């Protein structure tokens, strides 16, 4: 890098613009912001002292990014958005080009300047909306804010007076891409930066290890300035707020533990205590903060508890407990979620509930400037066992400004959590059904229906095969009733047969009698002439017809059928003793005997028996889903129907 050397207009000391593109340089001697205007220098006023952020970088560090020439950190800009400060590092490449390296909450984003496409004015931006940035793709507006030029060090590529407001929009794109629209202090965008999250090793940088970078407030032994209770700080590099577990005071970890608010002892008893360590997804997490939030719907408050987990290399995750149901929650890049229909990773999630979530109580450490009463607009989408959650925080009085965050929760059985954290006793039993609780029925339901269909088809096939092979007529006879016989008398009785049955199976006895508005009852017996075995049966033929005001009608049939079970091969006769309606004796009746007749009724019963299982499963799945969705904005059954 070539340099431009001049004298500070404020103190006369030497200032060097090492990067040709630099327009502002903080004088190392007097702290003035020296702006370069052509060949002249201007004093933009004193720059405030650096805010002690937990940065692991320092001016002068050198590295190399994939495919780019070597770079050096030549400038540092600290921006304050009112509830926190972050660092932007200016990377000066050896070829004279530059890029930004953003550092916040232990994460780094490499951002290079690209041509600015037509984009909306700052006032027209709205978090959650999408913007087409041309070649880089379509991005989601994740954050729209105005930050203040808080402090700086080294060189900057623009000439802005310290303390100036700087409007910006952070965007999240596909594949982990990020973008920042820089609006300066006006309405029109001035620059677009596109990049992605990187690690220090990607940049060939090694983090500082000296103690200077740690905020002074986060020393070894801390006490609450309000109650003097000991405070255990488990994420000193990241913590911005500490809620004292003894007195509930909310402390600013970035400003010597200044008491921000005395909240009183929070009335929450975490089921997983602060400081508890547990291994989930092969990472050892520590619970560093606990927060109770709630939504109020129609006057009813629905609370839940969020446990902030921390691991230095992985960052932050959440454990969320609602009605004793647990979820493991990870943050998502807003650009990875298609907000139109809530599609993530190719899967569409169903909208469950929208609400206004409020922070009610806090305990422990938080990496952002949490405050009690803070509200966010929430939308939950479910696809068990996962839940996609969108939270939009809007700035008061500025509708489009704020930020949008997406997270992905995965249902975590309580016993797994208890085992992971080594908690004593049994976990409290869950209440009701959680929005993303896996249904015990849905997993097997499809497979069971397939198996049931196959079984039903097999039953039909067996029925068809047996019908084709069986159903052999073994005897047919017309039996006359003596003209003067009395109903039920021995004279009326007759024997039909003999006939031979050659195969095991049932016997179908079909009787046809020409009765009209009369009945014929046969007291029957099948007699095996070889063994003397007797199977009794009876069969009644009755047929009535007529007409009334509704028209003609009929009832019954002139044919009736009975089955005799499990008839072994042999020589048989039928004894038939008829009875009839007085004066209505038919002259004769026909008897047909068939062997091995599969009964359709039993095939139907077998199919029903097979289908009963999946139908019961389907019903229980339905009841489970009804209960799941009963708490949503889209209940399957209205509450009045439930009653």
């Amino acid at each position: 890098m070539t340099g431009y050397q001049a004298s500070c207009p404020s103190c006369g000391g030497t200032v060097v613009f090492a990067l040709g593109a630099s327009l502002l340089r903080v004088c190392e001697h007097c702290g003035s912001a020296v702006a370069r205007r052509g060949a002249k220098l201007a004093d933009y006023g004193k720059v405030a002292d650096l805010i002690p952020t937990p940065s692991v970088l320092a001016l002068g560090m050198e590295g190399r990014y994939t495919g780019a020439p070597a770079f050096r950190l030549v400038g540092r800009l600290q921006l304050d958005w009112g509830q926190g400060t972050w660092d932007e590092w200016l990377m000066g490449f050896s070829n004279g080009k530059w890029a930004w390296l953003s550092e916040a909450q232990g994460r780094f984003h490499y951002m290079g300047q690209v041509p600015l496409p037509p984009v909306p004015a700052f006032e027209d931006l709205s978090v959650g909306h999408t913007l087409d940035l041309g070649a880089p793709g379509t991005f989601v507006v994740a954050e729209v804010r105005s930050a203040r030029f808080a402090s700086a060090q080294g060189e900057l590529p623009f000439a802005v007076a310290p303390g100036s407001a700087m409007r910006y929009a952070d965007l999240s794109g596909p594949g982990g891409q990020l973008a920042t629209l820089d609006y300066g202090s006006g309405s029109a965008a001035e620059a677009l930066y596109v990049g992605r999250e990187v690690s220090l090793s990607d940049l060939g940088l090694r983090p500082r290890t000296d103690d200077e970078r740690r905020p002074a407030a986060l020393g070894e032994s801390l006490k609450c300035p309000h109650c003097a209770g000991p405070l255990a700080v488990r994420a000193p590099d990241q913590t911005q707020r500490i809620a004292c577990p003894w007195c509930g005071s909310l402390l600013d970890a970035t400003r010597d533990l200044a008491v921000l608010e005395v909240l009183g002892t929070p009335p929450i008893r975490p089921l997983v205590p602060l400081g508890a360590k547990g291994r989930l997804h092969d990472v050892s997490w520590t619970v560093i903060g606990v927060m109770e939030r709630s939504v109020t719907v129609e006057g009813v408050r629905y609370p839940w508890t969020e446990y902030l987990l921390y691991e230095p290399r992985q960052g932050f995750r959440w454990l969320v407990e609602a009605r004793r149901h647990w979820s493991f929650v990870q943050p998502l890049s807003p650009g990875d979620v298609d907000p139109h229909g809530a599609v993530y990773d190719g899967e569409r999630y169903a909208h469950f509930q929208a609400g206004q979530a409020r922070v009610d109580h806090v305990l422990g450490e938080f990496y952002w400037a949490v405050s009690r009463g803070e509200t966010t607009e929430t939308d939950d989408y479910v696809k068990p066992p996962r839940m996609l959650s969108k939270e939009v925080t809007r700035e008061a009085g500025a509708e489009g400004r704020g930020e949008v965050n997406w997270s992905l929760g995965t249902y975590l059985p309580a016993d797994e959590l208890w085992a992971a954290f080594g908690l004593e006793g049994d976990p409290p039993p869950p209440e009701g059904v959680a929005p993303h609780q896996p249904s015990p029925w849905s997993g097997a339901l499809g497979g069971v229906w397939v198996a049931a269909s196959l079984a039903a088809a097999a039953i039909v096939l067996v029925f068809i095969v047996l019908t084709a092979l069986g159903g052999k007529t073994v005897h047919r006879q017309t039996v006359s009733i003596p003209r003067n016989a009395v109903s039920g008398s021995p004279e009326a009785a007759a024997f039909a047969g003999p006939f031979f049955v050659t195969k095991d199976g049932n016997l179908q006895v079909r009787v046809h009698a020409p009765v009209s508005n009369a009945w014929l009852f046969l007291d029957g017996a099948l007699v095996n002439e070889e063994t003397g075995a007797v199977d009794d049966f009876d069969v009644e033929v009755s047929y009535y017809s007529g007409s009334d005001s509704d028209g003609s009608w009929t009832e019954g049939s002139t044919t009736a059928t009975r089955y005799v079970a499990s008839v072994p091969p042999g020589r048989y006769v039928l004894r038939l003793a008829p009875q009839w309606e007085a004066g209505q004796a038919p002259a004769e009746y026909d008897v047909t005997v068939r062997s091995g007749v599969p009964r359709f009724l039993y095939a139907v019963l077998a199919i029903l028996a097979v289908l009963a299982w999946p139908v019961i499963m389907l019903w229980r799945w339905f009841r489970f889903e009804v209960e799941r969705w009963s708490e949503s904005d889209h209940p399957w059954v209205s509450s009045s129907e439930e009653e």
Partner: protein
Amino acid sequence: MRRAFTVYAVLVLALYSVAAAKGWEIASPRRGFIPQSVRTSPGGYRSFNYWRGGK
């Protein structure tokens, strides 16, 4: 769940197949036997008295 159902479905199918092949009936009356003395007597089981008494 699916495995349990498969076992159940196979049992139902087997039960139905055997029942259909053997001609089993639900609630069929118990099979009786004509005593040897009746079978060897004149008229045997074709006599009215047997059926009247046997019923």
